[in-house]
């Protein structure tokens, strides 16, 4: 059943493929503006690039979650799926697919960052630091996004409400992620407590999401 659910989620994202392309274009434009306006006049330091990266991750997560939520509502998949599928499975499948997709687009984001900003050197240590923290960060954003998209379904404005919820409520993850990477790049070693905090966020949002699916049923 989980396999079919994953297929359904991929199909939903496939419906939003034009949106995906616009997402990549937007990302390129976003980074190019920073490159053109700041990098040319003075090299951006690593901390600023880390901030830029997390802003990009948030933007990607926000647009992707909004698109998938819209597609799901328009196609009627939301109501139909919930009639036949256990809600926790649906939550896990949706979060997993979102995470996978965000992960791939974020690799593209990383490559662009290495290309556009000189202070971020394409080295194995740098790559390790980038991946180490953005995996739990993206996982947290996926769980939170899916949870909030369910909440937005209950409102009169549907997914239009999503930014109002997602922007302020995802800030703790972004700050924790940025702080963790800033420590990694300044000290050159993995900060275990930062990593634990990020994974704790993932577990918290996963638990909240599963609980909401369980108790927030019609």
């Amino acid at each position: 059943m989980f396999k079919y659910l994953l297929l359904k989620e991929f199909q939903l994202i496939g419906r939003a493929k034009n949106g995906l392309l616009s997402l990549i274009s937007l990302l390129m434009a976003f980074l190019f503006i920073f490159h053109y306006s700041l990098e040319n006049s003075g090299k951006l330091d690593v901390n600023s690039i880390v901030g830029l990266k997390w802003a990009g991750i948030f933007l990607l997560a926000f647009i992707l979650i909004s698109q998938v939520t819209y597609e799901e509502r328009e196609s009627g998949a939301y109501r139909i799926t919930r009639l036949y599928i256990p809600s926790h499975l649906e939550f896990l499948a949706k979060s997993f697919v979102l995470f996978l997709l965000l992960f791939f687009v974020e690799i593209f984001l990383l490559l662009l960052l290495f290309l556009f900003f000189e202070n971020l050197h394409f080295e194995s240590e740098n790559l390790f630091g980038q991946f180490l923290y953005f995996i739990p960060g993206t996982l947290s954003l996926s769980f939170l996004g899916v949870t909030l998209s369910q909440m937005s379904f209950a409102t009169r404005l549907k997914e239009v409400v999503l930014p109002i919820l997602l922007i302020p409520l995802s800030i703790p993850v972004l700050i924790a992620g940025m702080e963790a990477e800033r420590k990694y790049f300044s000290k050159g070693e993995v900060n275990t407590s930062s990593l634990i905090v990020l994974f704790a966020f993932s577990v918290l949002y996963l638990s909240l999401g599963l609980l909401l699916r369980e108790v927030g049923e019609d």
Partner: protein
Amino acid sequence: MNTRTIQLYPLWLDYLLFALLIGLFPVAVLLSLYYPNVILEQGLSHRIFYFHVSVAWVALYAPAFSSLFGILYIIRRDPNWDTLSYSMSKLSLIFSILVLFSGPIWAYSAWGTPWDWTDARLQSFFILVVSLLSYFVFRSLITDLNKKAMYSSFLSVLCALNALLTWGAIRWIENPGNHPGSVLGKGGMDKDMKETFWINVLAYHILFLVLFLVIYRKDKLDAKLVQVREEMDN
């Protein structure tokens, strides 16, 4: 009809709280204005410290209470817990906005600028206010009463997370901004400042309790009204 109510405490405590507020609050305000010595570098405006910090404490732990009531609603499904959580969120929004107004007044005289965009505490407090606003916007957009209560309870937990982050912004994050560390951590307040500070903390906590009672009772009446209307419609 559900006629059960949550009795927080006996009625005589109401009178005691009101009496304490009327007696203590003017004393606290006058003390903060006239008693402690002025910090020379900051001038008279530093006296807003006694208001700002006391109000900020309440603004930071009110979301924690709100989330606690929210969790109790999720467990018990008693609408009164949701009303308590809703009232507490209202109070935390009011007190947070007061902090956002009083902070820049003090900052302008102390730092020469009303807002420091590099400061983690200031940004996180702003985010807390935005998340509380989103709680109310979201709540107003749901028509189903059960879903409204359930989803609001979850949102109150997420708002409490933002409050926790704001509390930790001067403790856990390496802060390049101007905001000072914890008042309690320093231990450097003079005796006159310390006395005035604690009296103000007490006074604003009593104000918080009194306002909470007023708002909660009003919300409880509103909730009953909605319930009666629904039952009449059915």
